């Protein structure tokens, strides 16, 4: 289980939070004409990378505030959390700390076969 640092309350147990999927997905302005494809991508399509990921969380059983974070999806480590109105951090800042469990390949499953 993760410890998540709520930008409003501080570090708390994961059980207090809910995940809200990819962050920084802009909702298209409803007053403008947009095509099926563009709208469909907003509604249905989300990135699912192995590695660094901008993500939304909400402190459901706490202050009920939404916030953003950068999470390494291969280790679940949350590298930084920040408020919605803050600028999104540059992922290059975290590249050096990204690691995968047990030295598994960057893409693919985490099978424990050590190839040297």
């Amino acid at each position, binding site marked *: *289980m*993760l*410890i998540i640092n709520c930008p409003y309350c501080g570090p708390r147990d994961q059980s207090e939070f809910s995940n*809200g999927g990819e962050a920084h997905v802009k*909702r*298209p*302005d*409803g*007053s403008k004409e*947009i095509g*099926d494809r563009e*709208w*469909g991508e*907003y*509604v*249905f399509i989300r990135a699912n990378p192995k590695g660094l990921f901008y993500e*939304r969380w*909400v402190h*459901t059983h706490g202050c*009920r*505030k*939404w916030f953003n974070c950068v999470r390494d999806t291969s*280790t*679940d*480590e949350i590298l930084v959390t920040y408020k*919605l*109105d803050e600028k999104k951090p540059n992922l290059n800042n975290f590249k050096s700390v990204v*690691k995968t*469990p*047990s*030295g598994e390949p960057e893409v693919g499953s985490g*099978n*424990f*076969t*050590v190839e*040297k």
Partner: protein
Amino acid sequence: MKSINLKDNQFIQFHQKISFKFDGVKYFGYKGDTIASALLRNNINLVGRSFKYHRPRGIYTCGIEEPNALVQIISEYSEPNTRATIKKIYEGIEIESQNRWPSLENDFGIINNLFSPIFTAGFYYKTFMGPHKKFWKNLYEPLIRRAAGLGKPPKDFKGISNHIHHNVDVTIIGGGLNGLLAAKSFINSNYDVLLIDFEEQLGGIINNSNKISLIDNKEPKDWLKETIQEIEESKNVKILKNTLVTTYNYINHLIAIEDRFVGYKPIEGKVNSTLHKIRTGHTILCNGHIERFLSFQNNDLPGIMLSSSFEKYMCRYGLAPSKEPVIFSNNSNSNSLVYSLIKVGLKPKAYIDSRSGEEIEPNLFDLIRKNDVPLYTNSQIKGAFGNKKIEKILVEDSSGALNEIKCDCLCLSGGINPDVHLFTQSKGLLDWDEKDLTYKPSKPFQPTITLGSASGQFNFDNLNSDVNEKLKTFKVKKLDVKLELNTNTKYNIEKLWEVSPQKKSLWAKSFIDLQNDVTTKDIRQAITEGFDRIEHLKRYTTNSMGTDQGKISSINALGIVSDLLDKKVNEVGTTIYRPPYAPLSFSAIAGRNCYEFYDPERKSPIHSWHLKNGAIFEDVGQWKRPWYFQINKDETMHEAVQRESINVRENAGILDGSTLGKIEIKGEDALEFMNLIYTNSFTKMKQGSARYALMLGEDGMVKDDGIICKISDQHFIATTTTGGAATVLGCMEEYAQTEWPNLKVFMNSITEQYATFNISGPKTREIMKKAFPNINFSNEEFPFMTFQFHEFNGIPIRILRASFTGELGYEIYIPSNSAPKIWDNIQSVGKEFGLASYGTEAMHLLRAEKGYIIVGQDTDGSITPIDLGLSWMIGKSKKDFLGKRSLTRSDTIREDRKQLVGIIPSNKADKLEEGQHIILDKEIKSPVPMLGHITSCYYSSTLGHDFALAVIKNGHSMIGTKAYASTSSMSTTGVDIVKPVFYDEDNKRLVS
């Protein structure tokens, strides 16, 4: 096996006798004994029958790694699979052996041993997948279910467990020599430290062996006492004893289980275990090592045990299980057993070492020579033999000659492994050490430090420098401990995994996994059959898949496989050690979240009235709602529901609607916000009026519905479905914060603050007039879909004229505390008008007659408002609202979407069934094109027949046509597709 007590022991209280029962017979042990040590004291070594072949099994180890000695504790709700080697006895404890019938001595299942050539690797898979599946069902499964397995499930288990959370800087796992040294370094530092040990007494190897002779020139036990006292007195180190760390998760999250009744019978109603959930900055693993066994013919006979376990029984439990055991080893770790035996005046019957004379440590050589112990170097045990116990062994000596040695006990050592389970759970990497022949921790993945033998340091030479070096990231004092040893200082091992049997036979068995009855032959066969990847091999043979996870044997299996494949062990890899380290009970995991606390029950303020008035409840989310009211014991549900619904149509009914979600929305921009959240437009709506509204997902599908009351442009109250309340509030908050932070709007749940009564029926107005005499309920003063605030006997109430039944109706909102009073009042004034309570089932029937949908019953997340025929609810002039753009997507404007229609049986006497398909053909001939299905279905006394709502493809244009509904008896019923409204189509009664 004849044991003797060694009374010079600080842990066993020889003055305090304890009686216990094993398989119905009374025995005596001493305070401090485990079940295993107490049984050995009574010369009992046959304690169970094996999993598959029902072979007699004895006590193999002296700790958590025990594969064989699993017993059932009858006196503790018949708790099964308890390790006899760790469970302490108490006065009156009742223990039973497992997996035997009719008795342990004469077990019928031993017949499996005769059939053993068919129970080989992959037996289960082959019988499951093979051509003779019938055999499986009719023959094998019933037989195997009876014969294979461990203990019986417990009875009426009422264990109580607490959960405790810790947040510390450093957690030290294991209070042996290295754990204590680490803890000592942290004394009076600025770190919060938790020291966890599985045993009642800290000390590990100091208590369990005679390896160490002096620490800082003191007797080890004196040094231990002083050190523990120092640690206990420090303010920053907390010690948890009797606590086993079972799980090492991400982000240094540890789970440990503490036994609160070690050596005592658990008291009913008291917490008997505590689950510790630990958050720690750093984890220091000092959890030591585990000795492994060796494979040879009949290496499972009772009387065979690990040599370090024998020594632990001597040092820790004041008991030598045998007076003259034979020792068989391939390494230096068993040296100290020889030393320990001779120290108390015993000696081994023989010492057999696979190593050559030059390899054997000189001081061991001297000891053996001086005491005339028969020594066999370069020798191996080919097999052990005996009836239900070891009686003799066959030794092949360096010349190749066979020697028979009679013995009652054999001590084995196949080398030692760092206990890497927790380290690998933490995702740390292991490396194979070709010299010490074991996997050792290499690269940690988390802030994990390993010390001592847990790190693969089997020698004591670098003790100080190792601890100091690994703890240098902390501001702690440096160690300088002087250690003197009784035996050798360097660990030495020669490769030996398995000795092949003297005679080849189908029945000869060399075990590689004692708990799961896996033999080395099974491993060979699996590899021959192509299962040469270690993870496949594990599952195919079930090797190391028992509750002990092959703690004493899994490395041996890797060794054997690597030899067979002619690969290095590192190339073979290891299987993944998964949590928990040792089994823990579900009750410990559940903690207090069980029984009534498993899921909270929510009750309306009127709940006690319902209880008194015959309500039968149904669960709606966490809420208890009256389903129907039984006026007498003989009334069936059908009768009650029809009575309640007719009464609403003819007189009046009252429903407790308090569980409906209620959300208050306020703020300068509340109007704009509501227009964005719901499909409807609230702009032109008058203050004091109400509107039925739909909420969509961004995909355009109906998510929730409710009635919105507009108090002003800055103030709304919305109701939601009972189940959707939290989701709707969450959704509003999400959009207010993430998409429209510029809007000034706030929202809060007021579900539990207000009770809601729904009164409806033709006589409702008269009842309301009488219940609230100061309010004018005329159509002109109080029209349909309006609401008013009033005060009644000092209680602020809100009355909304709305209806979910199709009759004239009102909803009354009352502060929860005052609700029962008003409820009672309405009940009593309503009596003369025939007012009766109705439950959710009658409500469902009444609303369905009107064609009102229930979100989640008639919709399923793939239904748009257009599909429901509710296009009129969409504020088309609005620029934007949730899901608006989706309503014009190519998929949502398709004509053949499933749409809501009404269904009535063509022959009125026919029955319809909820969930059945609507199809075009009378005959069911596969493939059957399915148009859709019935979502709601009831019998209506008002209509005099069954009717249903359904969603079917292109339904709107099919109204007026005929189709068929399938039935659960695989036939069909002719139906008419009609408009989804069956009663009062032009709403005359609603607005009357």
